[in-house]
Structures are given as C-alpha cells and as structure tokens.
C-alpha cells in the first residue's frame, strides 16, 4: 500500500475537475489550485467541443446555416434561431407577418420555461436532491410535446424561417398551451414548498458566492447572473425587438448578489414567461405566417448588422457583416454563457469546493454554447 502524501501547511495541490464531470454539465474543465478544501486559484479550460459555428456561418448560405443555431444551446434553442432570423430579416428588409412574430414569441417563451425547468432540476441535483429533477422534467415534457407537435422535433428545432415560420400552430397547440399554464403555476408552488423553502438548500446558497454588480459589468454577464446582482437589464425591455413591447411583464431583479438570488430570478422568470405566453395566446392575430413578397435567394446588401435577444441564458447577439453575396462575410455569435462563465475564475477564489460547484450550477452553463 502506498503511503499517504503529506502536504506542508502552505503547500497547494492542483485538482482537475472535468472535462467529464457531472457537475460541469458538459465538457468543461476546471483546473483548481486547492489549499485543503479551499480554492486558491481556478482556471476554466474550454474548447473541448468547439465546432466552428462562426466559420460554418461564413461557408454556408443563409438558409443552410439556419439549423446550426439550434445546435449551440440545446436547451433553449429557439431563442438563438430567433436572433439569427431577426438579423438576416433586418439586413435584407424582409417584413415578417404579425402572426408569425407572435407565434415566435410564444414559442421562445415556452422554450425558455423548458430551459429553466431543466436548469432547476439539474441545479438541485448538483446540491444532492434528486426528486425535483424528475418533477421538473415531467413539466418540461409537456412543453416538449407541444413544441414537437408543431415543429417536428423536440430539442434541435429548425422552426423559424427568414420572413416567418416553418409550420403554423393549430387549435390543439393553443388548447395544450392553455392547459399548461395553470399546471405550471401549480407546479411552481410545489417547487417553492419543496425546494425554495428547504433549509438545506437555503443554507447552501444564502450569502454564498457574492457577485458584485461591478464584476458582472466587467465580465459582461447577463441573464439571472446580472439580475441576481441588482442589474436591471433585459434585452426584451431595454432594446425591444419582435412583439415584446406589446406584452406586459416584469423583469425580476434581486439585490442579494448570492447564489440564491440567481436561483430566485430564474424561478420568477418562469412565471413572467407564462404571463407572456398567456397574453400572446389572447392577442394572437390571424393571417399568413410567411410574407407574400420574399426574395428567392437571400442576399443582404453589403453592410454591418447587429441584433441582440434575451435567451434563457442571457443576451445573445449576432453580428452579420455582408458583402452582398450569398454567404455572410463574417458572422459573429456573441454567446452569453461565455461571459457568465469567466466570472467563475475570479469569483471562486477563497471558496470551499462544494460552494464553488453550487455557484457554478447557479451560473447555468451550457458548454456547447460557450464553445460554439
């Protein structure tokens, strides 16, 4: 038997978390310099599933690149597609019918709820509670079934088209969505009693991993990470796009800056998304889902275009530089988790390892979206 290694009091060791580790939710590697159970320094290493999405964007024509966007963030794919179609529509001057834009908003919000539910389940599982994951997945399943019936797929939707949509929604979908809203509200109450009120859960998150608003600004953090630190910024409200100005909804903001605040923001966002879906279904106008006049080949005039949207993970932006050809000259994808993740290196110094992993869970990282 080997003799145990004895460390000197001021000696540190390197702990390698990932790239295949359940707590990193994907292929993220974290090199942690540890002093006992405390982190002295941490370095996130990314790039394990880099797929050159930006380069693919330059090589493929606009319609051919459509389906790539849903491969970036597999949990909230529709928000990313939405941004891409919006920027290309803006560039080539395509006018989207009102009905299509309403359906897009409804779908994106449903997808946001599905994404938050999955995050909720996985986050609680990181902290050691298994049942909430099962309950969250059961609710999420209802959304996936609804989306599948309309779009034809459950995860990597390729639903939005330049100018409109691939399929129209039917009465079955509307009825299912209306049934889902009260169900989800009931479930939210259940989660509140089961998880939010739980003493073990609260003790592990309250006051842990404080992120100052300055730090969030420095790293360009968005979504619940910034809103949990008191930064009232949501692209849907601050730089309105699509039909969001038509809806009445609140932006949940918490000033506690800790992991629990980030959790609370996301749970409140589910309720706000339900409100948007409800209003969208009430206001849904009739009409076509594709415009009458649409260029056969998409060739935006030369120029530089940018569009940002609020996805489930934060503000996602697409910068499109066109030279007037069939392919973009440059397609920059600004991914929100990339900024959110880099907070981790600085913020986790001095933290205990289990707090750091709980903190990582509260950032809601989706690795394919960081690497893209």
């Amino acid at each position, binding site marked *: 038997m080997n003799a145990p290694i004895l460390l000197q009091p001021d000696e540190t060791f390197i702990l390698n978390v990932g790239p295949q580790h359940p707590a990193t939710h994907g292929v993220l590697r974290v090199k942690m310099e540890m002093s006992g159970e405390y982190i002295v320094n941490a370095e996130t290493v990314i790039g394990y599933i880099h797929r050159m999405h930006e380069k693919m964007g330059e090589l493929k024509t606009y319609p051919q690149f459509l389906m790539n966007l849903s491969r970036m963030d597999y949990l909230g794919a529709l928000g990313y597609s939405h941004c891409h179609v919006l920027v290309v529509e803006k560039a080539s001057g395509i006018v989207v019918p009102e009905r299509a834009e309403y359906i897009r908003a409804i779908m994106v919000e449903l997808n946001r709820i599905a994404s938050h539910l999955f995050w909720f389940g996985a986050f609680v599982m990181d902290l050691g509670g298994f049942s909430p994951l099962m309950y969250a997945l059961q609710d999420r399943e209802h959304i996936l079934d609804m989306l599948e019936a309309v779009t*034809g797929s459950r995860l990597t939707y390729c639903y939005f088209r330049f100018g409109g949509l691939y399929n129209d929604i039917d009465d079955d979908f509307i009825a299912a969505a209306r049934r889902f809203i009260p169900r989800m509200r009931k479930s939210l109450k259940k989660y509140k009693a089961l998880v939010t009120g739980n*003493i073990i859960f609260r003790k592990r998150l309250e006051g842990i991993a404080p992120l100052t608003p300055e730090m969030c600004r420095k790293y360009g953090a968005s979504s619940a990470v910034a809103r949990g630190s008191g930064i009232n910024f949501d692209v849907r409200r601050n730089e309105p796009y699509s039909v969001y100005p038509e809806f009445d909804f609140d932006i949940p903001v918490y000033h506690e800056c800790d992991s629990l605040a980030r959790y609370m923001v996301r749970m409140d966002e589910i309720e706000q998304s339900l409100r948007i879906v409800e209003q969208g279904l009430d206001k849904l106008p009739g009409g076509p889902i594709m415009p009458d006049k649409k260029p056969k080949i998409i060739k935006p005039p030369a120029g530089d275009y940018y569009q940002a949207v609020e996805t489930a993970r934060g503000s996602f932006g697409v910068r499109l530089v066109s030279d007037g050809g069939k392919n973009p000259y440059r397609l920059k994808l600004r991914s929100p988790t990339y900024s959110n993740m880099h907070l981790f290196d600085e913020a986790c110094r001095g933290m205990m390892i289990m707090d750091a992993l709980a903190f990582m869970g509260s950032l809601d990282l989706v690795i394919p979206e960081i690497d893209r």
Partner: protein
Amino acid sequence: MVAYFTEIFNGLLSLFIGMGITFKEFFKPTVTVAYPYETLTMCARYRGHIELVPDEEGNPKCVVCGLCEKACPSDCISLAGEKPEGGKKKELTKYNLDFTRCSLCGSCVESCSFGAIDFSKEYNLASTRKEDFIFNLLQRLEEKKK
C-alpha cells in the same frame, strides 16, 4: 437563543413539508413508458429521416431535379437519374441518404416542389456499423412495393 431554536424548528418543518410533497407524488399515476417494451407513436409532423414518396403505381414521384441535393447543408443526399429509351422524363436510378451527416433540418423536404420526399416516423435506428446509416432510399421504396 430563541432564534436558534426557531431556526431548528422551521428547518425541520421545511424538511417535513418536502417529505409530504414527495409522499404525495409517490401515489400519482406513472407517466413514463417502459421503452423498449412499450413505444410511443410519433406525432404527425415528426421529422425523422427522409423517404421517397411513391405515386399510385408505386414508382417514385421524384423527377430528379436535384433541388434537395443543393438545399442540403451537409451534402447528405446523392441522387442520379437517366432518361429511359423512348421516354420523355428522367427516371430515378439512385437516391442515397448519408444519415451519418444528416441533422434532420428538413431543408430537402421544403425545397421539393413535387412532394416526392417526406419524413419517416422511424426512430429506432441504433446500430454499431457505420454502413447501416447509408440509406438506399430507392431500394427501400422497392421493398415496400413488394
């Protein structure tokens, strides 16, 4: 001192509330399916891999225009056709789908103006050999005809 005991009491209470919820869920009906012993039928719009659509006589509707081949972002589709002697229209002689590269985006079905390709509802496609995913769709159609 009082706060200390209140916290312990409230903490214990929160645990029992949680236990109550999981206990209630325990008696709720099962919602999962014991796959592979039970399977679900896919919805009408399910996007599986593509298949050729036959006309009334069972021959492919395809006119070999090659639009699906061009629309595909990943070059999955390769097709060929030739004019039979004395015939006017091209007839399909080969239609291969490389499913290893397909991402099920549906661009090919959308590009087809003849309704010659459609999504299948097949999803039990696991295999350990790569060759199993090179689908000869024309051969599949002929087998179906028989």
